[in-house]
């Protein structure tokens, strides 16, 4: 059990793809090419459309599960056993991205359910230390009986 204080000191892995953004909660660190009007996640060095460097764009982590699965074999990278992953369609940017799903949600996952990005303790890093990871967590929808 971690206190909020201890959680804040845990390292976030992998680095550079998600961050807390003040009042709005966690966001994904993506890119945007104003010339091609395209969003990217993660941010590429060059826009594949025009080769200009994309700007950083913080992407909302609100979305809908496009597909999901539960990995039940011995997990890699210090992840818990079992752990859940999926593709999430992000509401704002329209990107479909791969991500971890909250393993507390495993029995309630379904395609089409609403999720929101969180940063929290999940498994251990390469050195065997507890770490934080970005993951998508189910959002209770209106009329949902969960």
């Amino acid at each position: 059990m971690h206190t909020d204080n201890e959680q804040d000191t845990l390292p976030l892995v992998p680095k550079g793809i998600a961050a807390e953004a003040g009042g709005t909660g966690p966001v994904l660190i993506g890119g945007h090419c104003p010339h091609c009007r395209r969003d990217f996640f993660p941010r590429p060095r060059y826009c594949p459309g025009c080769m200009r460097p994309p700007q950083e764009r913080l992407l909302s982590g609100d979305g809908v599960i496009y597909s999901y699965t539960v990995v039940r074999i011995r997990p890699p990278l210090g992840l818990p056993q079992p752990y859940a992953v999926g593709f999430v369609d992000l509401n704002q940017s329209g990107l479909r991205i791969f991500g971890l799903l909250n393993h507390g949600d495993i029995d309630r996952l379904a395609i089409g359910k609403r999720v929101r990005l969180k940063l929290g303790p999940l498994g251990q890093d390469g050195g065997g230390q507890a770490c934080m990871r970005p993951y998508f967590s189910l959002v209770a929808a209106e009329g949902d009986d969960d």
Partner: protein
Amino acid sequence: MTKPVVAGVGMIPFAKYPQRTLVDLGAEAAFLALQDANVAPGRVEAGFFANAVGSRLFGDSTIGQNVLWEVGVNRVPVINVENACTSGSTAFYLACNAVAAGQAEMALVVGAEKMCVPEFGLINSGESEWDTQLGLVAPASFALRAQRHMLEHGTTVEQMAQVAVKNRAHAAGNPMAMFREPITVEQVLAAPMIVDPLTRLQCCPIADGAAALVVCSEEMARGLGSAAVRVEAVVLGTGGYESPQDLARWETDFRVCAQAYEKAGLGPEDLDLVECHDAFTISEILHYEALGLCPPGDGGRFVEQGHATLGGRVPVNPSGGLLSRGHPVGATGVAQVMEVVSQLRGQAGPRQINGARIGLAHCMGGDKAGDTKSCTVAILGI
């Protein structure tokens, strides 16, 4: 441009070889292919060696030179090829191109892998990408496709299990296959769950193994006296990696298959057999659709109705496929071409498809942004 032909094939049974080295496995397959083509090693003008995980597991590199030296192939260009599961089929692609361009009149392709060692973990596409760092392992990316296919097309777990059952039944006739005992749909579904909804018997097993091919010009083949099989087309494509990717209809798979048909001037209706990359049961169902063997979405029903079974409309994976032959990554793409060649020559024993004239070998490898890193399709004819 000269048309390349396959003039010799050789492989060792895919199995566990704890006492043998990677070089030893590759050299035996190379020897068998040269012997089958009835050529001395001095006639080989280029060598292409495929291996995917040797550098990671054994810290070794440029292994091809070691393998080819064992069978007397030296001084000529030797190229080491790593392209995930398509390493072997990429080596074949390069050899065909070298012969077609007149850069080598004869090329030797060897694919070898040794992975049944304690150090071996779960296959993923490397740890430099953010998605593999978030736990994307190979079976998960196919499980995610399976979930979509089930939702969109009504594909059932029983239909997926039938792919494993069919390929195991085919493997009974293939002495090169690792697993040859028949299995039932009930057994497949009762096996331990790996990644929902794929059970262990729906995931191809790792193996040690090696396979080799002699590729040469048509003119040279005429003088050899072995049964040469024409390469009508061989193509290699990579993913588009744009977001969003459609996980139930694989754009890269459809695109590369269409390109191969166009190049060969042939279509799915011309095929007598297919060897495809059944790394997982759902993979084979997706490939039926990309190859145009059935309409998009109908892959589950296609296998259920027996169309992909030996004796059916288009037998798929008569060798037993990756699911039963085993998957020594660098050797797989070479072994697939060898199966097509053996069938077209009428040398496939109890699993022979009578009168087979045209066959196709399809392979896929790696994962990036919900897409494949590599896809190869070769169409061969006699």
